């Protein structure tokens, strides 16, 4: 199992690496400029969060990320800016969040599919975002919060997932379980 973590520059990119390591999955952090053919060898990709403002159309610095989505057929998980980018790539609307969230957020799970399997209907997660993505065609919303309607989604046609919150940080409840569920998809 080799997971490549595409680094959008999050403070928590390395926490993703740590979470996966604790789950026995080997992972490597790679820059967005990595050639596409190197990425194709991976078993799964994770797009980290980052300081880029996807909601303001700030996508100049994300290198080959769009090509990774188009050419890699395995499971992909996008976190925060990574989720927003994936949503936007498939025609969703990225915008400054109506209610930006920093720190503790109560998450309501709308649909317990493979990503939230075995988890409660609501739990505490940690978020840190200025932007959000909404109206994502071809994706099903899996969770929301009081201020954000699209906190997690899943593609209807491919194994692509996204979380606006950060399952890799200590203060998110069940964060490790969410990555474990994603790895289960990748190990299939």
């Amino acid at each position, binding site marked *: 199992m080799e997971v490549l973590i595409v680094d959008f*520059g999050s403070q928590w990119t390395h*926490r993703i690496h740590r979470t996966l390591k604790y789950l026995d999955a080997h992972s490597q952090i790679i820059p967005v400029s990595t050639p596409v053919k190197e990425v194709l060898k991976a078993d799964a990709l994770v797009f980290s969060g*980052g300081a880029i403002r996807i909601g303001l159309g700030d996508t100049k610095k994300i290198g080959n990320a769009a090509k990774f989505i188009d050419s890699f057929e395995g499971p992909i998980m996008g976190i925060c800016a990574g989720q927003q980018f994936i949503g936007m790539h498939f025609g969703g609307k990225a915008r400054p969040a109506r209610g930006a969230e920093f*720190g503790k957020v109560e998450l309501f799970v709308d649909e317990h599919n493979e990503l939230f399997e075995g988890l409660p209907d609501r739990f505490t997660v940690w978020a840190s975002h200025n932007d959000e993505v909404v109206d994502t065609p071809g994706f099903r919303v899996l969770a929301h919060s009081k201020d954000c309607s699209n906190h997690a989604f899943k593609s209807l046609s491919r194994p692509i997932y996204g979380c606006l919150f950060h399952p890799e940080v200590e203060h998110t409840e069940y964060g490790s379980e969410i990555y474990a569920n994603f790895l289960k998809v990748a190990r299939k």
Partner: protein
Amino acid sequence: MPFDPNRFVAEATDFISSTVGKGKAIVGVSGGVDSSVAAALCAKAIGKRAHAVFVDTGLMRKGEAQFVSLALKKAGVGVEVVDARKRFFSALRGLHEPERKRKAIGKEFISVFESIAKKRGCKFLVQGTIAPDWIESGSGLRDTIKSHHNVGGLPKKMGMRLCEPLRELYKDEVRQVARVLGLPKELSERQPFPGPGLAVRIMGEVTEEKAEVVREACAIVEEEICASWRQGKMGLPWQYFAVLLPIKSVGVLGDRRAYGWTVAVRAVESVDGMTAKASRIPPEVLERISERITRELKEHVNRVVYDMTSKPPGTIEWE
């Protein structure tokens, strides 16, 4: 698989031996768990060819130089203490912006280490840098949150090569390593202290007077919280300290008007320092802290507030 501290010790000692080779290294120690672990690993890997140096910047905790020498002695590491108080205060004079302060401190540390390295023929500098230090220092797409003195605060040109065995670790993992290395508890379980010291607990310009005030305030917070914890009145927070805000407010002391500074008390719950939540300290403990600070530091401080901000959006330290 969760972190395996024994395996890490084996890998890290190999890493240090192969990096330093037959050479000699300075190990910068601050009294915190990270640099203490780095020093203990060096002692294991290269023995007497590692030379531990504690720089007294004038911005350390109360009684720190003595504490560090004693605690590390117990761990089998001898420490040279360098009194560099004057040069740090003079380097910080007139600096208000946190990033400029942090970089000035980083530069001073390196010049102190360089002069010792030259005298002793050391080609390497071993630092207890951990993951949050380089993460928050930023690079490429990653924004600079704060330049840690040991990473983003380093001068561009240095006469020593860096060796940082703990770069991949977070604080909770470093503590596990400290325990398997048998470091004394007062080191392995000690609360974190920022590399630039009290300079980042004084908002704006640092002076000796402000350093003295915040050092005392930090000691009061630590004493009161530890005492309440020992009495079973509260859990011990992950980190707890005071911040000096050189903002004045009006008070009344003994029927006389007072116009003094403000102290913010900060205590947080965390595991790795990358996210944090304000601790729920019992009100009577906060009250006691406020009373002691405003009485014992009455010439300077007449107001105490408690910081409830999580990380994010705040950071743990204020600068």
